[in-house]
């Protein structure tokens, strides 16, 4: 097997990226945001010059944006630029944890239900639908009232508990359509076991949909947390983008001239929203032929 033939699928991916501007723009945006978040300790160190720029009273309160403090400081004298980037990291981490968890749960539920069919599917689908119709936001509010001082992982878990059904439903319908494909039937008469069929025949064809499932649950989780924080019911002491917005509202930051405290997190959230949705739409377009521009006969 030559190197060239091994690289062929990668070249296919590269071609699809080139051909779909939504997918490529979304990916560039997302990668940019992730890099920014990963650089947050470096940024923090650079801003702090040896001290912690987000420690209480590190600087004077309510400093206007300046070359030293690009976004100014908040009511406790913390550097807002370093804080916003740190919060982006927290938001992304929570999203990633919730996204991974709900995708894993969703994928397992979907594959078992979709592939096995019959009564198994009936039961699992009912459970999925029940969780789906539970009004998650009020429940989250109630839940967060009892959970003070929780970490990022616990937050992710809490959010994933409500977001997995979205992933499960999308993926199940795909499994249903894929399991009737002739290549699955050929696999059956070739004595492949159920697990082998799921892993080798179905899963590779499901990756784009799993990607979509992951992106939507992650996005859902990030925004659910922002929602909680903005109304002041955020659990724990972790500072995510929502908490900065909440502080900005609570302290009337806009009237004090600290507009970046309000604008910066919202701008980052908008970018993130745009990035993940562009990726979602792009993947759908690339892998769902019905949405693909129809070629001539």
């Amino acid at each position, binding site marked *: 097997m030559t190197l060239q033939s091994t690289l062929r699928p990668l070249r296919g991916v590269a071609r699809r990226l080139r051909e779909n501007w939504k997918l490529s723009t979304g990916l560039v945006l997302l990668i940019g945001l992730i890099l920014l978040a990963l650089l947050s300790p470096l940024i923090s160190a650079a801003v702090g010059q040896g001290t912690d720029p987000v420690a209480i009273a590190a600087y004077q309160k309510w400093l206007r944006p300046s070359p030293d403090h690009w976004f100014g400081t908040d009511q406790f004298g913390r550097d807002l630029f370093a804080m916003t980037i740190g919060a982006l990291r927290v938001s992304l981490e929570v999203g990633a944890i919730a996204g991974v968890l709900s995708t894993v749960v969703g994928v397992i539920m979907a594959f078992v239900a979709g592939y096995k069919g019959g009564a198994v599917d009936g039961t699992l689908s009912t459970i999925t639908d029940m969780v789906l119709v539970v009004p998650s936001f009020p429940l989250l509010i109630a839940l967060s009232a009892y959970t003070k001082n929780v970490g990022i992982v616990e937050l992710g878990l809490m959010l994933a508990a409500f977001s997995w059904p979205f992933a499960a439903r999308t993926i199940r319908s795909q499994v249903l359509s894929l399991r009737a494909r*002739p290549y699955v*039937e050929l696999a059956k008469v070739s004595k492949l076991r159920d697990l082998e069929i799921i892993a080798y025949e179905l899963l590779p064809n499901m990756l784009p949909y799993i990607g979509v499932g992951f992106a939507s649950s992650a996005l859902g989780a990030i925004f659910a947390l922002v929602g909680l924080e903005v109304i002041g019911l955020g659990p724990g002491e972790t500072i995510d983008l929502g908490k900065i917005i909440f502080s900005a509202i609570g302290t009337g930051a806009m009237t004090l001239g600290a507009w970046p405290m309000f604008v910066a997190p919202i701008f980052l959230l908008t970018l993130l929203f745009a990035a993940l949705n562009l990726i979602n739409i792009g993947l759908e377009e690339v892998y769902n032929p019905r949405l693909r521009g129809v070629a001539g006969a």
Partner: protein
Amino acid sequence: MSARTKDIELHDVEQRFHARGSATGFLTAVHETSFTLRSDPPHIVSLVGQSGSGKSTIARIILGLQRPTSGTVTYGGKDIFKLSRAEYDDYRRNVQPVFQDPYAIFNPVYRVDRVLRTAIKKFGLTKSKARAQELMEESLRAVKLDPAQVLGRYPHQLSGGQRQRIMLARVHMLRPAFIIADEPVSMLDAQVRKLFLDILVDFQRAYGMTTLFITHDLSTVYYVGGDVMVITKGRVVERGPVAQVMHTPSHSYTKMLLASVPQPDPDKRWTDRIDIEEADREEAAPEVPTSDPARVPRP
């Protein structure tokens, strides 16, 4: 009893599906159907019928891909859904399909070789890599394909005729006692179609494989010869040697089918007109949504 003397027998096989919008809530795809496919002597049996006649359902049932609502399918006298491990291995080894759609039969993410390699591995044809390569190349040549042009390719890089012949190469490697070929040429162009049928008939003769050839096209039935069963609305209405059924059909449905085949000869144009209402009655009803057959309660 060796594999070559085991028969496939259908006893009163009936398949119903849930169907919204039909009077009974059921749609009976196959009505109590019985027939036997004998492995000795090896022969070709065509099952001919139009869309919705139940012919593909029968293929899926014989292949064990679908459980009939009632009735049994036996292989060597044993119900195929109640086989022991060893019996199941024997049944799978000896009852193999060629499916209709040369595009959907390949998983788009893998190279086409995988279909052959899986067969070698799962049926234990050989453990040696070199021998496996030899087997694949030999079988590809047997279906008039150049191994160098096929191996290592992805499905979308090959034509429909090439892909469908790879499925024949798979059969050539496995040499099952039975081939269940469900509309294997309906999606092929005329020239490749002829080549495919020639290879299929040659295999059947050379390796003694009994072939169930399922088709909607009477002219291909004539081409492959052997015996034929005519199926409509889930019932086999006529059976017999091809020449006899084609030249002296006894059932009115067979007669109508025969009269409807457009002869590829401008001098043999139809001179009479067909009764449109009668033809409409014979056409399958508009597709009724059916659901998972697994949920149909067994009577």
